[in-house]
């Protein structure tokens, strides 16, 4: 009951903000709401302005592109994570999947020796990319089936896969790193570094990959039946199921997509580094979750969008790179990143506790609604 009490107070607060700003900015413009809903965007602007003042090197196209290629890794993970979080789940395995994908790619680039036939196969890069994505999809499939069919809580299932995928990556390399991913022209498998190093119109390929994946995910969410299914599954799985939404299939698929996103991120990262280590991507899942949350998605599912998630990824990336550039110790970087995440979650809860009273504004519904709900 105290909830609705707070709600009423919060509601009258926005009421006053509304009145105050209406005169200044014309009708229907609400500064408080704009600042709240565009918070990731304003945070990004604030970060860019602050670091540009602190360091002469920060504000340059070159630096932005470098930072963007760092963001690409987190961004790819975050897009997949976002799909999972929209259904009300969580995918803790993406960091490990990224590492495993890198190792699988590295393994394939070294050539596969088939002893039975006495030949060594050197698959071309496009085959490597497809097989690596398939590995990511497989990890996601296991996650999805465990969660949707066997009803294992998402947190536990993906935590398990976090360990398994990392362990497999370590086993494959015996803990070592594949260093030579360039391929050899005579073997016809060159071009792996293209993903990480090449640029199109001066934009790193990794950033373009992120843009393409984000665009695809955005179309998927906004313009396809599957997208609507994802939102409804996260909003109310029981209601979605009774409306004919194949909730289980949707759940499995979002984890598969998340696994594929992680695999793509693994490819881009190992290409950027031209090496694939089994420990790559450790704790990246947490960064990805942070990006999604900063982007305004609700961890309870049903709310969020790709634009916000990308902004969230840029906020984290630009912040941590900025801290490096101005020479803040990495320990402080950790503290700052954590503070930003807590602040983001705080604002999320303000935004979403804010919405319910908006309906309570109409007593026709509110008075009874509260007790019926």
């Amino acid at each position, binding site marked *: 009951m105290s909830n609705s009490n707070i709600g009423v107070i919060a509601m009258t607060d926005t009421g006053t903000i509304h009145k105050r700003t209406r005169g200044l900015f014309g009708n229907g413009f609400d500064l408080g709401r704009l600042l709240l809903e565009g918070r990731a965007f304003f945070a990004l602007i604030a970060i860019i302005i602050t670091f540009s003042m602190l360091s002469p090197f920060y504000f340059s196209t070159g630096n932005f592109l470098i930072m963007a290629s760092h963001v690409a890794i987190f961004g790819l993970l975050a897009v997949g994570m976002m799909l999972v979080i929209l259904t009300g789940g969580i995918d803790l395995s993406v960091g490990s999947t990224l590492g495993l994908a890198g190792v699988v790619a590295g393994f394939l680039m070294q050539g596969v020796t088939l002893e039975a036939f006495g030949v060594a196969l050197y698959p071309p890069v496009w085959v490597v990319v497809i097989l690596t994505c398939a590995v990511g999809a497989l990890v996601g499939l296991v996650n999805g089936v465990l969660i949707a069919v066997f009803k294992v809580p998402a947190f536990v299932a993906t935590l398990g896969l976090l360990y398994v995928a990392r362990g497999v990556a370590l086993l494959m390399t015996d803990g070592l790193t594949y260093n030579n991913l360039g391929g050899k022209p005579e073997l016809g498998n060159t071009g792996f570094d293209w993903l990480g190093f090449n640029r199109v119109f001066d934009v790193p390929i990794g950033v373009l990959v992120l843009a393409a994946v984000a665009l695809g995910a955005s179309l998927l969410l906004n313009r396809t039946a599957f997208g*609507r299914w994802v939102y409804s599954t996260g909003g109310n799985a029981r209601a979605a199921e009774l409306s*004919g939404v194949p909730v289980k299939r949707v759940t499995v698929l979002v984890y598969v997509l998340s696994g594929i996103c992680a695999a793509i991120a693994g490819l881009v990262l190992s290409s950027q580094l031209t090496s694939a280590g089994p420990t790559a991507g450790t704790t990246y899942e947490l960064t990805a979750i942070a990006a999604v949350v900063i982007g305004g998605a609700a961890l309870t599912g049903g709310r969020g969008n790709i634009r916000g998630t990308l902004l969230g990824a840029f906020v984290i990336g630009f912040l941590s790179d900025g801290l490096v550039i101005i020479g803040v110790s990495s320990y402080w970087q950790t503290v700052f990143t954590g503070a930003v995440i807590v602040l983001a979650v705080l604002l999320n809860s303000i935004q979403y506790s804010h919405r319910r009273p908006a309906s309570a504004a109409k007593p026709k519904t509110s008075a009874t609604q509260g007790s019926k709900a």
Partner: protein
Amino acid sequence: MSGAGTTGEAVLQARDVAKSYGNVQALKGVNFDVHRGQVTTLFGENGAGKSTLMKILSGVIRPSAGEILLDGRPVAFHSTTEARDLGISIIHQELSLAPNLSVRDNIFMGREITTATGVDYAEEERQTRALMEELEEEIDPLTPVEDLRLGQQQVVEIARALSVNARILIMDEPTSALSASEVEVLFKVIRDLKARGVSIVYISHHLEEALQITDHAVVLRDGTMTARAPRSEIDLEWIVRNMVGENFDLGSPPEGHAIGDVALKIDGLSVPDASATGRSAVDDLSLELRAGEIVCLYGLMGAGRTEMLECIAGRLPKSGGRVLLEGRELGRASIAERIARGLVLVPEDRQRDGLVQTMSVGENLSLASIGAFTRGLFTSRRRERELVETSIRDVTIKTDGGQAAIGSLSGGNQQKVVIGKMLATKPRVVMLDEPSRGIDIGAKAEVFRLLAEGAQRGLAVIYSTSEVGECLSIAHRIIVMRRGKISAEFGPDATKEQIMAASGEAVVA
């Protein structure tokens, strides 16, 4: 009002109490008396201001104007705790017990009896036992609340209120989830409480039920009090007239259209009981429903109505029998396949099973028919908008438009969204589980009118209800279920007594 003296005198009074949220006035100067040792029932449609008034009386919210008198002296409470200290307790429709804790722990939750060495469990247990004896309920203080039946849980809530010496007990829809026998137990408890001088404020949508127990009736409409009278001067018709403000009728069976072929045939259907293994919630039940026909399914809670409808819809597995839609067996078809073939269910609990709260009115309406506006890979926004607008018009939903938040609608309009969502799939057979639950009488009539219109266009309709009055409205046939079987079947000329006797209600009462 009724005579002076201790019993019957006004113990709690609201004087010109008003409450506004922003520009909207939820209560417009209401006067309301609670009489000592008597039950005062508050009647009104959803949104009439009942809950707002109750929240004010129990200290959840403060009035914008007016005053509250307790024993004739003005009081102001700033929280439910303050109200509780003054002897006013509220029992919400949704019980606020911790299911994992025992009865004892729930009763003393937040005000444990402590000694120097910790909680005095023995003393708590003794007091709990004493309370249960007073209420004549055989509930062991150490039973976890989740093991109790809903009616018993309600008794625990009442015991908790009594343990803080509540003099005034506010009960918001206490019977909505109770079976007839549990309601009887509750009413007995209420009568005992009255005898001890406890004053009760009662809110219920079950008008007939409330009439059995109440001493005074107060009717609210649109935030103002439209009528009040002692029990002896009123009847059902008086309440309804004052609630709705006009003569009101839930309709009669639609006529003048042809009843078609069998649309839905259920043959020996059995559904296992989820809570008790080996038992059947629906037991070898057969039923036929024709196109253009409206069938009402009446029964007590636990009679198996919901299980049967959910099994036909594909939500629950069956343990035997067949379901045929227009002559073709459904077998193991998924919910989506059944919807595609024209069989839909409007679930009982619209918040839990019907609506996606995070989505807009339009997105909710179109959720079950996404395929209808998808071309190739992508959805067509224009077609979706058309579908949503048509639905809003057809089902007469009062909303600002498809973009509106689902939470901004009243209960009745939310229910219409759930119905509209299923009707948008162009079904042949529509099943509605308690379509009138928790919606006001005006919305109820509109829902029934919609169903009657659907039947005239050849839709086969089956709806379940636990209010006898709703059986004798638009239904061509009334089927009474009892313990998973059909116990009787009536035409529209049946009497309430016949129906209630067939359901087993009369035996209990």
